[in-house]
């Protein structure tokens, strides 16, 4: 019984991290599409958010791969230790960016170059989804999943 429970938990853990990886990969490819294909230049704050989400795509992937010393079916539990700090810092930048974007923080206080304003709204998907919103969503979802993982697995 005990063994069985553990197995189910390790399955759940793997899928939690897999979803985290999917979110990080969507953020990676999505942001590259915006900048490289659509030609929307990333502002300074966008770069800070990229810095903290790009490594997540790699870290999650590595933790999902079968390990030599571990059970082949599981996920590396220590992944939470390394990815959670990145996600939390990234969320901080995303929230700050959202405040600049929506005008709560005045433009002259934000650390952007004059040519590329972080407050300028570049894109609105379906009329209301902006890039900082996508960023906040990705980071929060990853953090939530990691917290569930830490508690349950």
């Amino acid at each position, binding site marked *: 019984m005990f063994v069985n429970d553990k197995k189910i938990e390790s399955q759940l853990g793997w899928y939690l991290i897999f979803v985290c*990886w999917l979110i990080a990969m969507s953020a990676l490819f999505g942001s590259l599409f915006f900048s490289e294909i659509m030609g929307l230049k990333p502002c300074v704050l966008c770069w800070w958010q990229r810095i903290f989400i790009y490594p997540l795509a790699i870290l999650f992937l590595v933790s999902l791969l*079968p390990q030599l010393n571990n059970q082949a079916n599981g996920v590396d539990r220590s992944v939470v230790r390394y990815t959670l700090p990145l996600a939390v810092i990234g969320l901080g930048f995303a929230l700050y960016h959202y405040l600049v974007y929506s005008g709560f923080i005045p433009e002259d206080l934000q650390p952007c170059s004059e040519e590329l304003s972080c407050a300028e709204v570049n894109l609105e998907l379906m009329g209301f989804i902006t890039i900082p919103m996508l960023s906040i969503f990705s980071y929060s979802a990853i953090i939530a999943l990691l917290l569930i993982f830490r508690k349950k697995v």
Partner: protein
Amino acid sequence: MKKNLLVIAAAILFIVAFIVSTTIYNQQKTEEKSTASAGKAEYLQRDYSPRIGPDDAKVTIVEFFDPACGTCSAFYPLVKQIMADHPGKVSLVLRYLPLHQNSDIIVSIFEAARLQDRYWQTLEHAYKTRDYWIEHHVAKPEKFWKLLDTLDLDMEKLYQDLQSDEIARRVKQDVSDAQVLEVRKTPGFFVNGKPLVQFGYKQLQQLVASEVTANN
């Protein structure tokens, strides 16, 4: 094992989705760009625009350029090469889009030199000496001015002509035409009025070649 497959499948899916959306996006952009410049022929060239190549050429390349732009400089010999590849069939019209700071003064110097019949020499000289009169992406007209002594120009006349309203008007007109034609980067090319949508030397070569075949 099943999980590995899931990871690999997801990774492939991401890449495929990226490629597919890129293709769709580019196709849409191509259509948009072609329609943006359609019916705006009068904005493409003005009677004052500098032109080189045979008068009866059936293919005309219009290039919006900025002398301080590195890619414009790199493209200048390439455009010349394209013209040489189709002797007597292609002409080039230059328009100004001075996006760099102070670049508008540099192009005004070209126009002033034009009054002394030294237009193309001055332009080529500017490209050749780019490293000496551009600092941190800002054009330094006073430095370029000092480099002009090899060109056998009447410097006093050049200085006076530089202040002329007509030259300022032309530069302004070019910039506003670029806006109408939605040219936002330099160099911006049109071949017989068709915009170069995907930027690149090969693409420009192909566009010119197809216009040459279509018109001869």
